[in-house]
Structure formats: C-alpha cells, structure tokens
C-alpha cells in the first residue's frame, strides 16, 4: 500500500483512513505500507500488524509542490522496487494521484495488480480545471484510473464523479466507504480540565475539525456565528486545524466582531480531538466539496450530532433529522438555523447523539470495510 500520508504524518483524513484500513486488513493479509518519512518516526516499524516503510522524501529542494510530489514518487518508487524485488505481492494499492507514478511503475515492473483509491479529484477540489498545474493533476488522476485494475471510491457521489470525469466503466469501480474504529471513537465523559482550555464553564462547544482551506467552507460557519450567538450567546466555536486560509478566516471572525467566540486551536493530536469531541455539543461540517468526510464519522461514533453540508459523502453519512441536519452548502443562514435547532432542543440533541453512534457502529465499522476490501482484492484473481 502506498500513501503519502500515514500517522504520525497527517495532512488530511487520508492518514487515518490508511492506518485504520491496514490495521484491519493485517488481520487477514500481510500488509506493507510505503510512505513518506516524518521527524521522529522510525524508518521501519510494525504498526498493528502492518509493516511500515518510511522513505526519506526530503532529498532535494523543489521549486513547487507538484515538482516535490514527483521527486517524492522517485524516492517511493526506488524504495518500493527494492521491497518488491524477489518477493511475491498480490496487490499494489495506491491512494490518490500523489503516489500514482510510483504505483503505476511498480505495477508494470512486477506485472502486478493495481488498486487505486480516489479519495477526491482535482476538478472537485478546485471546482473545475483552470491552470496547467491543475491539468497535470487531473491527467494523473485519469491515468491512474486507466491503469488500475479496480478503482475504489468512498461514496456514491465520488463514484459518479470519477466515472463521469475519467470515463471509467462502472463495473471497474467499487464503492467502499471509509470506516472508523468505534472502540477508539466512542462517547466518553468530558475531561473538565481539558475543556476549560477551550470554553468557559457555561459555554456549549460547536466544533469544527478539518483543514482550513476554501473547499472546507469554514467561512460559511464563521458567517453563521453572529446569527447563532444572537439566539444562543452561550455557544463557543472551536476551530481545529491548520491551512493556508487560516489568516483570512481569523480576519473574517474579527470583521464580524465575533473573534472572542471563535477559537482557532491550530493542529491538535488525535487524542486531543477525541477529548474535544467528548466536550462538544455538536459538530459543524460546512464543506463545499467533500468526497467522504471522515470527521463526520468520528463525530457520529463519538455520539456528537452534526450539521453538515448536503454534498458528496456527507449526504450519504448523515441521516437528516436523525443523526444531525443536512444543510445546503455555502449558505450561512441555513447552517445557523440548523445549529440553532440543535442548541435549542436538548432532547433532540440526545436522540441524535444516540442514533449517530448506532449508525456508525452498524454501517462503518472497520471490520466491515476491511471485509469488503478483501472481497475486492479477491475479485482480481
């Protein structure tokens, strides 16, 4: 399995997905993960049954991210070729365009079978292809789907997107949702001392977790804050994550005069995110584009209701009115109304919390996801 993210190196939700998937798969198969190095992380380690090979990818300075990515592929390919030499691997599993050149080369070098999980597309992230930079990524994604024996998408909306963008035959695509370890993410008592770092005693936490980039729509949430505060002055908005839009978002909060009520925590560890989930009254996922939305599952498994954009994978995870509310994307008024509805009705919040947890356990356990993945692998032989 090749992925540019694997814990402790985390950029988005990919690292968690690959970690959980390999952990579950290693119960039934020998799994090797080839990934990028990270300060302090060992070059090789056994992580929950999977062998992780971390490759030094910071070997030369790069003029830009795309060039860096291609050099990263050069390093991953070299390491992957040495790993595959003389050994018998049944499947090479590629996560996203970022590692596609290395995976495709390895597929041909060992005459192997290639699985490609497309977690999102450049066209979706950028709302179209506008520059040569984006065009290269878009072409790599298409090339990867062409070379792959099977393509995995994490939601039906992604199945439609990938099939139509790259002309992929439907029978080549498997819809396998991302899963979650419901023993790790579960309802727990809030840690009072920890909670005090983010909110006062009487405040109720409205949580956002994710990258601070335009497609996540955090500006829509901040735009809703005044309307929520006018009905519920006890709300406190905790924004977890980093990204290049952070300064802009902080400036919007200041401009709206709500900066005292919107706390940007920066990047937090998994453990701290879980502690915040146990303290959160509800979570908001205001994405404009979201192929899946692993944070939605983390909230559900933790028994936290969500208000999520009715888009992409979020539409398929959230049971409207039962586990949270779905709202039209890019609409602060609708988002504020949904958040206010949950803040106003404690009984509704409790019902949603219970149902969200039940649904996460029923539909998205890692065991079920790993079984489906193995079934797909076996379909190749």
């Amino acid at each position, binding site marked *: 399995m090749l992925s540019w993210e694997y814990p402790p190196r985390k950029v988005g939700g990919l690292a968690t997905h690959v970690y959980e998937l390999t952990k579950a798969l290693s119960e039934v198969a020998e799994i090797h993960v080839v990934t990028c190095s990270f300060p302090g992380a060992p070059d090789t380690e056994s992580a929950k049954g999977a062998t992780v090979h971390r490759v030094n990818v910071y070997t030369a300075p790069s*003029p830009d991210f795309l060039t860096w990515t291609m050099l990263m592929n*050069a390093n991953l390919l070299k390491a992957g070729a*040495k790993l595959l030499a003389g050994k018998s691997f049944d499947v090479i599993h590629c996560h996203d365009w970022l590692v596609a050149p290395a995976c495709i080369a390895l597929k041909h070098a060992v005459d192997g079978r290639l699985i490609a999980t497309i977690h999102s597309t450049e066209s979706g992230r950028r709302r179209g292809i506008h520059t040569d930079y984006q065009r290269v990524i878009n072409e790599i994604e298409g090339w990867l789907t062409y070379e792959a024996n099977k393509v995995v998408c994490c939601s039906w909306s992604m199945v439609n997107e990938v099939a139509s963008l790259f002309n992929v035959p439907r029978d080549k695509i498997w819809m396998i949702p991302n899963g979650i370890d419901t023993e790790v993410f579960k309802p727990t008592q809030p840690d009072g001392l920890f909670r005090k770092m983010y909110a006062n005693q009487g405040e109720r936490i409205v949580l956002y977790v994710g990258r601070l980039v335009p497609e996540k729509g955090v500006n829509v949430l901040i735009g809703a804050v005044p309307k929520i505060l006018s009905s519920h002055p006890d709300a406190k908005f905790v924004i977890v994550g980093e990204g290049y839009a952070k300064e802009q978002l902080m400036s919007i909060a200041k401009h709206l005069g709500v900066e005292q009520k919107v706390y940007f925590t920066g990047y937090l560890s998994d453990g701290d995110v879980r502690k915040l989930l146990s303290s959160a009254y509800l979570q908001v996922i205001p994405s404009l584009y979201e192929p899946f939305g692993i944070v939605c599952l983390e909230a559900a498994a933790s028994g936290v209701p969500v208000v999520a954009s009715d888009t992409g994978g979020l539409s398929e995870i959230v049971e409207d009115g039962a586990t949270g509310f779905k709202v039209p994307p890019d609409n602060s008024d609708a988002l504020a109304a949904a958040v206010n509805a949950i803040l106003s009705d404690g009984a509704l919040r409790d019902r949603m919390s219970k149902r969200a947890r039940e649904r996460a356990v029923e539909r998205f356990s890692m065991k079920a996801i790993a079984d489906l993945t193995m079934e797909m692998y076996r379909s190749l032989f």
Partner: protein
Amino acid sequence: MRPMTLKRVLVLTAEYPPRTIGEVAASARALSKRLATEGILVSVVTFDDWRPGQAVEEGVRVCRVTAPVRTFYSILTWAPLVAPEFVRASSSVIRGEGVDLIHSFEWVTGLPAITLKAVYRLPLVCTFHSIEAQRAADKDSPLSQSISFLEKELARESDVVTATNEDTARMLRSEYGLPEKASVIRFGVESDFVDLLSIYRRLVRDGKRGS
C-alpha cells in the same frame, strides 16, 4: 538462472533518432547499432510523442513510448511521469526475450533504470554527456539541485558510470564522489566500444546484480 554470457542489452534513452535534441540520440544509436553487429539482441526503449510504437531499425528493436500526461509542466515533473511508461515497455522486453544488462543514458531515464535494476537484479551501466553542474546557469537553484539529486542517484545505483568526455568524468568524480566508477567512453570510437563491451561482459560474467 540468467545466462552468464552477454546476449541481450536494454538501452534506455529519452532521445533516439529521429528524435534528436542533443548528442544523446547519436550516442545511443551508435552504441545500439554496434552492439547489434556483434550479434547481441538490442532493445531500445525511448520517448517519442510523434512516432510511438515498435520498430526494427538497423538491426535494433526500438520501442517508442509517449507521455501519459500530455500537459507539460516542467522537465522535473515530465521525467517521473514518463518513467512508468519506460518501466512498462522495458518490463515487457525483460519478461519476453530477456535482458542481461541495462544501459541508461542521462538522468531522465535514471528512475526506470534504477527500478528495473532493483526488481530484475540486472547490472546497470549509465552514461552522462554532461551533468547539471556543467549545464546550469544557477546550479544552486531548486530545479538544478533536484536534477543533480536524480543524476547522483543514477550514478550511485549504477554498477559502472561512463562519461563521453574527460570534463564530465572529472565532474562526476568531484561532484558526485565517484572516484573509481566514472570512465570515459566515446560512442563511435571503436577502441572505446571494445572497452565498453569488456565492461559489459565482466558485469554479466561476474553476475553483478542489483542490490
């Protein structure tokens, strides 16, 4: 078990006539043609967006691959993106008629060369006509440092490194720390071809295989 005599050579080059940008095309052609006259089965895998496909030219099997990503962004993104096509076409040759040794020209085909050497445990010879430090206006720019890194990788992973001139051989030794590996082989010069052939035969006979 691979035969211990030299019978089949795979040449990797980004330029091969008629696609000619610099000196590489002429060198690759001279080598391939001359090897073929020795009765060695020579397969060239090269890049050509306008003339893709297979051909036998002057006794040499030539496979021309194209860029799977058509948008050109920079040479440093182009090379890793075309590398899987080199690996695909080369692997087909290796698994078909077989290959005893790989000869790669310049850093552009270094990545597929290193991959194939590792997977198939084949000896690898590489040739540099020049290195980035000789060509670049600013050798400390990120672009040049990255190209230098890829050149160094190819040189380090190769069993034998050759240069087509003394300047480049000296630079390879000083810049990339190759005190013994870099020797001068001029393509089209018969005595140098004899030297190269004896290097090839020694590598194959000694079973010099990829790590």
